[in-house]
């Protein structure tokens, strides 16, 4: 068996703009080089926090369902939505719980704190080490390519529409250089009072 992080393929990217954040994912699910599905989204919404998960497909689904349960329980206890920073600590501790038999995922969080109005993004390794960033976070089999496209396209204080274009182009151009990701994309642009989800058509080869 090969590396569990690259068996199914996939890519996620998150970016910060001016009072907004964007998060995008590709739609491929594969087994090695064979594409099984071209409709496998990797971004999940939990109140104000958006979670992108790349890695082993079974763990992507398992983790998304586990966090749905945990966030629903949080909402019942606290009688409010979870904030992105709190979600980051929840993801981190949940992953570290499996320190010696990890879930093979590389999560990314994006969201706007509804109390302070501040944009927030962060990424994790598979055992829960948080990577805070002021600019962008990448993850998945196209992460090398995403670093390149993000470094060249991203600039500070982008308005929501410009941030969408930057995020979408960074993602689409990165996955075209990766055989294990692509086949379409989802991009969310999150502002304090509006969330726009766009479905992007990518190359189907």
């Amino acid at each position, binding site marked *: 068996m090969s590396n569990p992080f690259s*068996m*199914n393929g996939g890519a996620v990217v998150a970016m910060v703009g001016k009072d907004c954040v964007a998060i995008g994912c590709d739609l491929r*699910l594969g*087994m090695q080089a*064979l594409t*099984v*599905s071209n*409709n*496998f989204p990797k971004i999940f919404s939990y109140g104000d926090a958006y979670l992108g998960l790349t890695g*082993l*497909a*079974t763990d992507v*689904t*398992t983790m998304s369902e586990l966090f749905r349960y945990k966030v629903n329980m949080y909402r019942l206890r606290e009688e409010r939505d979870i904030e992105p920073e709190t979600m980051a600590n929840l993801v981190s501790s949940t992953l570290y719980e499996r320190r010696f*038999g990890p879930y093979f995922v590389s999560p990314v969080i994006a969201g706007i704190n509804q109390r302070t109005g501040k944009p927030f993004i962060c990424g994790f390794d598979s055992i829960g080490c948080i990577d805070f960033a002021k600019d962008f976070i990448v993850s998945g089999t196209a992460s090398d390519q995403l670093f390149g496209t993000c470094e060249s396209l991203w600039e500070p204080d982008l308005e929501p529409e410009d941030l969408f274009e930057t995020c979408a182009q960074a993602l689409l151009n990165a996955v075209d250089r990766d055989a294990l990701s692509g086949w379409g994309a989802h991009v969310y642009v999150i502002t304090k009072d509006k969330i726009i989800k766009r479905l992007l058509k990518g190359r189907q080869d």
Partner: protein
Amino acid sequence: MEVLLGITGKDFTLIAASKAAMRGVTILKATDDKTKTLNSHTMMAYSGESGDTVQFAEYIQANVQLYGMRNNSNWQLSPSAVASLIRHELARSLRSRNPYHVNLLVGGFDVTENKPHLYWLDYLAAQASLPYAAHGYAQYYCLSILDKHHHPDIDLEKGIELLKMCRDELINRLPIDFKGLLVKVITADGIREIEL
């Protein structure tokens, strides 16, 4: 070299499984049934490690039927609920000391929303809802045929025609005789077997 195929259409889901029960290069049986009926409108086909397959399939079948009995037989699990249940059990087993090595296709017809469903699950419990699917070597030969000829609103006749194209290609390309396909179709009326 077990073959599992699934195709959805306008108002049906077709599931096909090879009839050969093999052990190494020996064919032990030519009339094997690698499918299980879960409830009135849901069934599954399975392949993988012999022993694991039947054990896991019977466990799932028993639990889906138990759910039906507990709920007065009027409220059955929908195909999507059945697929989620199976994925949950497989994912739980994956992190145990000896996981089930079973690949599955779950086919169903949702009578409340009047739609066919097909779910693809591998032994790692990766799940995908698909218009057509295959497991094993059949993937390499049949998915390309289905990419070209499948359409979401084909009728049953066209679905059977597609299965025949897949079968003929497999007979041409596979080195071992898989003894033909056992084909079942799920429609609003329930599950029935058909001759290919």
